């Protein structure tokens, strides 16, 4: 029972971590919270499910999901955030909330309010470790998440664009003076953050075999809590925060009350804010 909940928690934790990475990168570079991150996740899932239903090809579906998520991310950056740069944090915050409502209601308009299945079977095999049953899909989710996190790390530390993002996050004026195209760094941040969220959305769509216009709301909020838990702006923090949150939530649901499963994330958040506002890995508040 304990190990089973631990595995289930790690699986949802991986997904929270992927979304939390998007939050934390955008916060690190722009100092704003992209409240529409959950909607990017949702559009990734819908893009994939729509193309999969039409073509039956998984490769095309993944491409479409990635494309949809990145497109939404870039549009958000261009129209909801770029015009508001340098204003009080409340302004982009309200704009982001608006964008989030707009995107989820547009999805309901285009895809209908009911759940759509994503009927792809990965592998029916289950493995038993310490009395916990791990399905092939769960292994896939953990594997893909780990690979993406490594890829993100390499991108940020090795590539030109990644280094530009880090430079702008440290000091955007100094970065601009050293000839870095700051706008391009913002777009690169939104693109990589959106791609991660889009993948998370697709993985969850297959895992639960369902997509719906509101599917991004709770994972989005919980991932934000995970980002704060780990320390906003910290990449390892987002990963640790996501995993801790996923495990805590599943154990809480199993041992305390499953009715309040969704509340644990926010209770954890309030506790962190009281005890250690800068989060587990945060350097400063």
């Amino acid at each position: 029972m304990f190990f089973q909940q631990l595995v289930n928690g790690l699986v949802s934790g991986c997904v929270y971590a992927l979304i939390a990475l998007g939050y934390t990168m955008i916060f690190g570079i722009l100092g704003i919270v992209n409240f529409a991150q959950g909607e990017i996740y949702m559009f990734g899932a819908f893009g994939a499910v729509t193309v999969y239903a039409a073509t039956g090809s998984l490769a095309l579906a993944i491409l479409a999901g990635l494309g949809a998520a990145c497109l939404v991310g870039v549009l958000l950056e261009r129209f909801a955030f770029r015009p508001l740069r340098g204003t009080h944090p409340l302004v982009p915050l309200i704009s982001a909330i608006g964008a989030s409502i707009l995107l989820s209601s547009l999805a309901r308009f285009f895809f209908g309010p009911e759940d759509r299945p994503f009927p792809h079977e990965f592998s029916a095999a289950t493995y038993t470790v310490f009395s916990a049953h791990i399905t092939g899909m769960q292994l896939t989710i953990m594997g893909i998440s780990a690979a993406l996190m490594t890829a993100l790390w390499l991108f940020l530390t090795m590539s030109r664009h990644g280094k530009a993002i880090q430079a702008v996050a440290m000091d955007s004026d100094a970065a601009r003076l050293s000839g870095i195209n700051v706008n391009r760094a913002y777009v690169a941040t939104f693109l990589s953050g959106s791609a991660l969220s889009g993948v998370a959305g697709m993985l969850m769509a297959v895992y639960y075999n369902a997509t719906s216009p509101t599917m991004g709301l709770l994972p989005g909020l919980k991932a934000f809590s995970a980002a704060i838990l780990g320390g906003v702006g910290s990449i390892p923090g987002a990963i640790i925060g996501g995993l801790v949150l996923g495990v805590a939530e599943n154990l809480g649901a199993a041992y305390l009350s499953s009715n309040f499963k969704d509340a644990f994330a926010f209770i954890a958040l309030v506790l962190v804010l009281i005890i250690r506002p800068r989060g587990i890995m945060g350097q400063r508040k």
Partner: protein
Amino acid sequence: MSAYVFHVLIMVSIFAILSLSLNIIVGFAGLVSLGHAAFFGIGAYASGLMMIRGMGFVPALFLAGLCTAALGVALALPALRVKDDYLAIVTLGFGIIVVMVLMNLEVTGGPDGLVGIPPAALLGTPLYSKPGFLALTLGFLLVMILSVYALKQSRIGRAWAAIRDNDVTAMFMGINIYYYKMLAFIVSSFWAGLAGSLYAHYTAYINPQTFGMHTSIQILSMVVLGGIGSITGSLLGAALLVVLPEILRPLADYQDIFYGALLVTMMVFRPQGIMGRVKITEIFGKK
């Protein structure tokens, strides 16, 4: 006038109380709350439960306001340790938790909600007529406008403005920012609780869904549309966002597209709202 017109006017005045109360937090004190509908809901449930158990309308109404204010304190104690985006997410989480609790408790009727709430009564006479109830809500709205206006001009209002414009400077001026921020939450949640009570006794039936995030966003849209910090703006925002959906009833499914687009476009093109004279960006200054 038909009963329908009275119904719309009653909803306008209830939402005007709500948007004005949120304006105290957002516009006066420069904080943010995305869980305002939870206060509305606490007031509605508290008042409904007390009256179902035999309490009179007037004590139930004010006790509901006080209960909600107490909950406002309970939220503000942890929430005010943080600001801006963090505060937004904490209040949002608070809103979600309140709805979840209302859904799962037995005393609140769970997802089915609370049925058979007695009507409002003044001096022992139940108020069944819509014009009568409208007079009651308008009376409350009037008292609220006057008191909020007085509050805005007072020492407290000036302290809020100072905190909103620059909290560090305000602190150096000797303003106890924690106390004044707390006060904003208390006053705001008290009025939201009263609005909830009025709503519960008007509709006689409440369920948790009414008080979810959708309503919180709706109230925030009213404040933003009318103009953050403007009293007339909050009234106008409430009137527009209650009346427009009634007129556009055939397009009810697209309401949320409209709210979302409205918030983004207002922030990008007219952050000061319809009635605002100063840009929110100027009020708040550069970060």
